[in-house]
């Protein structure tokens, strides 16, 4: 599903090269839920952005579904993201003037899908995440947890191979945080979606199938779990 080999990333800072990631090797299997755990500045968000094709690595390779994304140009990457990758943001990143339904259907607009088909698809996913009654509402009329559910539905609407979640519970209270992780695990179990979740919260990471710890841009440990834990 996802294979990362010798991935390094650095940038120039005042004439000096600063390394953010150094020689990362990682493999994520299909239907797996992986948590990337690390403190602030550990390089976990950079790794996520590289995996999602939002940044180009300095060295190494990233293969998703057998395709190397590090050499793709911007248009090919957009096309690839559209077909293979879903993204969940910490602050939901919904378009405020679009309704819940329109927000979820937006990635399908870029695929050129007919309005009727994308409406049906978006409606189905919103029902799946428990927002079937709020289709015509706007993001500002929803709670943080509900907005994140919309964001999750949007990430799944294109039927991606893998979904990257960047601190999906970072803006939520404990109860809602649990609900959202429950939802992700349910979607993984029922739809077989692969999730890579970036988090700095240990409780969230503990519920994943595998925890990958990062420190100072290096992968320091991998812990595997048989199944989810109830946090």
């Amino acid at each position: 599903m996802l294979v990362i080999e010798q991935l390094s990333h650095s940038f120039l800072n005042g004439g000096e090269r600063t390394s953010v990631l150094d020689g990362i090797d990682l493999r994520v299997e299909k239907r797996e839920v992986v948590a990337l755990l690390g403190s602030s500045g550990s390089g976990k968000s950079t790794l996520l952005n590289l995996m999602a094709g939002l940044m180009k690595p300095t060295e190494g390779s990233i293969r998703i579904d057998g395709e190397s994304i590090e050499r793709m140009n911007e248009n090919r990457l957009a096309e690839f993201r559209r077909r293979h990758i879903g993204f969940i943001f910490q602050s939901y990143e919904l378009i405020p003037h679009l309704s819940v339904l329109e927000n979820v259907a937006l990635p399908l607009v870029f695929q050129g899908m007919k309005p009727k088909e994308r409406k049906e698809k978006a409606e189905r996913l919103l029902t799946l995440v428990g927002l079937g009654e709020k289709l015509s509402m706007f993001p500002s009329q929803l709670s943080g947890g509900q907005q994140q559910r919309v964001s999750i539905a949007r990430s799944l609407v294109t039927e991606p191979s893998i979904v990257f979640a960047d601190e999906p519970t970072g803006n939520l209270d404990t109860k809602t945080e649990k609900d959202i992780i429950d939802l992700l695990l349910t979607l993984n179990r029922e739809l077989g979606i692969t999730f890579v979740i970036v988090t700095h919260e240990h409780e969230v990471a503990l519920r994943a199938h595998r925890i990958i710890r990062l420190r100072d841009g290096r992968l320091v440990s991998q812990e595997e779990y048989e199944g989810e834990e109830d946090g």
Partner: protein
Amino acid sequence: MRLQDYISLGWDQLKRRMVVTLLCAMGIAIGSAAIIVALAFGESITHYAKVQMNSFLKMDEIHVSANGGGRSVEGSSVQEGLTAPKIELIRKLPHVRSAALFRTIDYLSFKVDDTKQGGLRLVQADLDKLAEYGFEFGQGSPSAQDNAIVITYAATFDLFDTRLAQLQAQGGDVGDSRDRLRVSYPLYQKRLILTQTIADANGIVQKTNEYPVRVVAVLKKPEGTVGYEGESIGYISEGLAERIMEGAKAGRDGRTAQEPELVIKVDQPSNVAGVESLIRKLNLQTQSNIHYEKETNDQFRIIRFIFGGAGAFILFVASISIVVAMTMSTYQRRRQIGIMKVLGANLKQIRNMFIVESALLGVVGGLAGILFSYWVIWAINIVLQRFAESDEILFISLWILPVGLLFALLTGVASGIYPAVKASRTDALTAIKRD
């Protein structure tokens, strides 16, 4: 991505930024209205110039004379050249509405009411057919009487007041201007005494012939002219023309009527050239004013170009406001663009979104511009009618409207290109991290 989705997303953005949209649309509206008004101005001027030209120069007329024209009526060329069968044939040619003979007989002075004197170029014509040739009667109508004369409106102007001249000669006070001796005088239904002086070879007057005639009709003032403009012409019947020519024979034997001319009316000025070439094949000489039309068109092309250029300049200025507004909008929407990119929008799609949005702005401005232009033309027409007392009214031809709209649309698209390219180059990650 489907066109309707681009339109829907673009329209949504325009609605959200209502004030900016209205201001930008206003700029485009003024620019496209200026172009529409400019084109309408040019079109109206051209139209009325053509009407004027047709009225003065009679663009739908062809004057036909025998080859080697200008010879005497008694010369053989007339009979040989402009024969009755040829005239019949010409009358049956396609696009020929009518064909009638006109002939300048002489230039005679006349007296009226014993107090005024004037002069007329006498033209022999079939008075009953004058109306067919576009002659419009201001007063009266042609009569079958032999001594009937139809005069032009200009003939009622610039008459010499003999009584005032007499008073002046006797030392009377007739004012300080010689112009006061030239007066206009109503001639309808008056009895004119046409005076023909017969001189010998040395120019010494031998005899004076007088022909009393009755003014049965005065032609209408030609459109767009003041009264004294135009030639003083009297149209007379064939009988009277024969008598005048007979009277002239007693003179020095040199003054004769001109060769008759067949005047042909063609259904449309555009068919004149074709009819002319057919007539020339009959070994006849033709003359028309159609070449003036080309010259005039060339002149008005320049006028239209100048007006259109002014409109285009205004549109250019308006387009700057769109570029500014759209560029600002790309900055305000950086985050949104970033999200769209993460969700799979490619460079082309982001670029197209902005171009369609500004094209919509152009269309909105263009439609408002059409409305504006009608108001402007309406206002100009009111001013023209009230203050300039002009009958000539500006109009907007239907073909101008899509041209105005197209200019507005192109301005919108062109103004959207830079912001669109800028938006498409937005780095998704930077945009999302911005806040």
